[in-house]
């Protein structure tokens, strides 16, 4: 506290300007002790790995794992020279779009169902959580076995129903394999997504619906004019997290087809792994990782822009 009558501050300022400067910088730095931990945390767990990833992509790394110095853009030239790259990237985009759109549509329905009051609702909610609790790798393996050519459950059932005449090796044909893997990916993404939607639905106050009813809106009109717009933040969050998850999804594809035959069911994530551990080319794999990272960033930014994120969440 300064005493206004003595004018101590002015006197101090005229005789010795330095303390004031110190004080000012001190004041500017004052929040630092509070900010520093989180800045340091972000730097170590977010920024540092990204820098390391970019660094790897610029290095020449021997097949044994020894770093042999910088290689400039060589790894990127190699990567863009791969015949498989373009099909893999296009397939990845298809995989992400397909899985996320289907997941969102099903989750909107499922969220609505879980939000409704009906006997046994609690049991149904638990049932929806189960696939979430199971390990993704396990789920993928179980589906791989169910689709087995010789003793799989799916072939057995279809044979007994006379839908097919002889067993189909589902996972050996790229098109069919992609569809089955997308189904598994939807299956494991549903619980999280529908619970985000459910949480969104529960934040919508009941009086909004009452007002709509008074105004004579039908249920379809109510859903599209009231429920969906109010669900927007929830849908946004759920779809962004799903896009990133599905883009980077490794266990499903690796367990079910290993990206094969050839690289016909690879996405960028499995392709990256194969570059490092099949082709023994860690540097080129690093370049793929950087491209993958950039792709996700661009996709998310485009999506946010399309969804007019700024107006929505403030």
């Amino acid at each position: 506290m300064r005493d206004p009558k003595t004018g101590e501050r002015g006197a101090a300022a005229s005789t010795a300007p330095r303390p004031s400067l110190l004080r000012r910088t001190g004041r500017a730095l004052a929040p630092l002790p509070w900010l520093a931990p989180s800045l340091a945390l972000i730097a170590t767990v977010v920024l540092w790995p990204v820098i390391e990833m970019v660094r790897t992509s610029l290095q020449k790394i021997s097949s044994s794992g020894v770093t042999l110095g910088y290689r400039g853009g060589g790894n990127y030239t190699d990567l863009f020279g791969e015949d498989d790259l373009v099909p893999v990237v296009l397939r990845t985009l298809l995989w992400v779009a397909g899985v996320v759109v289907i997941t969102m549509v099903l989750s909107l329905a499922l969220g609505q169902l879980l939000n409704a009051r009906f006997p046994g609702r609690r049991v149904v909610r638990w049932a929806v959580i189960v696939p979430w609790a199971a390990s993704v790798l396990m789920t993928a393996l179980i589906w791989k076995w169910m689709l087995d050519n010789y003793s799989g459950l799916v072939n057995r059932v279809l044979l007994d129903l006379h839908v097919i005449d002889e067993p189909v090796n589902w996972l050996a044909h790229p098109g069919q394999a992609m569809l089955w893997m997308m189904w598994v990916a939807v299956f494991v993404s549903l619980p999280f997504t529908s619970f985000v939607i459910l949480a969104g639905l529960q934040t919508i106050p009941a009086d909004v619906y009452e007002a709509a009813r008074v105004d004579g809106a039908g249920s379809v009109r109510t859903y599209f004019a009231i429920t969906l717009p109010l669900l927007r933040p929830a849908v946004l969050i759920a779809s962004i997290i799903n896009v990133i998850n599905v883009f980077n999804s490794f266990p499903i594809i690796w367990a079910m087809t290993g990206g094969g035959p050839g690289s016909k069911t690879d996405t960028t994530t499995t392709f990256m792994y194969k570059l490092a551990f099949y082709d023994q080319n860690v540097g080129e794999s690093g370049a793929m990782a950087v491209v993958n990272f950039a792709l996700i960033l661009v996709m998310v930014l485009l999506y946010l822009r399309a969804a007019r994120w700024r107006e929505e969440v403030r």
Partner: protein
Amino acid sequence: MKRHLMGVVAAGLTVALGVSGCGKGSSSGGDSDGKTIKFVAAIYDDNTKPYWDALIKDFQAKNSGYKVNLEMVDWTQMDAKVKTYVQTKQVPDVLNYNAFSDFARDGLIYKADEVLSPGTLGDFTPTFVQQAQYNGAQYGLPFISSARLLFYNKALFKKAGISDPPATWDEVRADAEKIKKAGATGYGLPLGPEESQAEFYSWAMNNGGGWVDASGKWAINQQANVDTLAFLKDLNKSGLTQPNPETTDRKTVFNQFAQGKIGMAIGGPFTKAGFIDPVNKELDFGVAPLPSKSGTEHNTLGVMDVLAAFKKDGGKNKEAVKKFLDFFYQKENTSKFLKTEGFLPVTKSAGDALSADPYMKQFVDALPTSKFAPTSNPAWSAVAGAVKQDLGSAAAGEDPKKVLDKIQKTAEKAG
């Protein structure tokens, strides 16, 4: 007050995180005395760990002051683990692996004579010593070996009216047709990403083909290989193999073989204990030389795993590593490992012990004529990886020449 405390704790934590994250130790601590070594062993099956545990206990009892820290790694994670060890400079002192030449090229491992006594060194079978060389010096320490032969189902052969196992490719084709008529699959062709390089080479070497030409240059797209792949593709297209060889692994083939659904398939000494017995102990099968195109020569595929000893702390670990390796290569210790796991010997002294078993004898006898993949070329791992990924797609429909061209390109890129 509490808040301040939390801030301090958080700051401390982040600093700790940062330090531990950035700190790349030059070696794992605690072994500066040079008497404690780290051994990374591959898991072959459930018996592997108990074997090493017992061996190490025995070693430590007989060499007081020395200590071996064992780490077991599954084969599916081995490649990733090994790369991490090297990149973070945390290499083990001794590694059990299937490749060594790129470590030798990068100056990471000892030469064999630096870490083995002359007695042990002289006991290796010459074929394997040759396979363990890089630039004329032996770096790899042969560990176990294996050979591939043709397995055939005697009951199915009888049912189809075939008296002898096939010796030529034409006979393979004719026999497969007869077996198909008898209601089973003629030949089981595993060209899936598990081990297609071994299956393919088993056929190619018996057509005069191979991975490299006489001068040691990559020759993956040579005519003999294209013909071989075309032959296998034709077998599949004619319905004489199981469907979709490009996604089939050995385990699936031998599962079907053991159930009597497949007439012929290529397997190794471990096939009986590992794949057939668990499914059907009663199966009446025979083992024959690999068929060749002409029927005159019958080459066998040989496979070898190695131990590699890494240089560390300027050679401080050399003495302990030598003690441990000489202990393992004692006759009774190696032959016990081979018996436990169903592999073939790499040392002369352990060789005779296995020949008493008539099943194993066929493979031991086949070893001297066996041909190996070019493991002494540092680019081999990359080539094998490319083969695993892509070769099968040729049997399914792609043009064999195009697929082999692509693998050749990968090989040349890798060096």
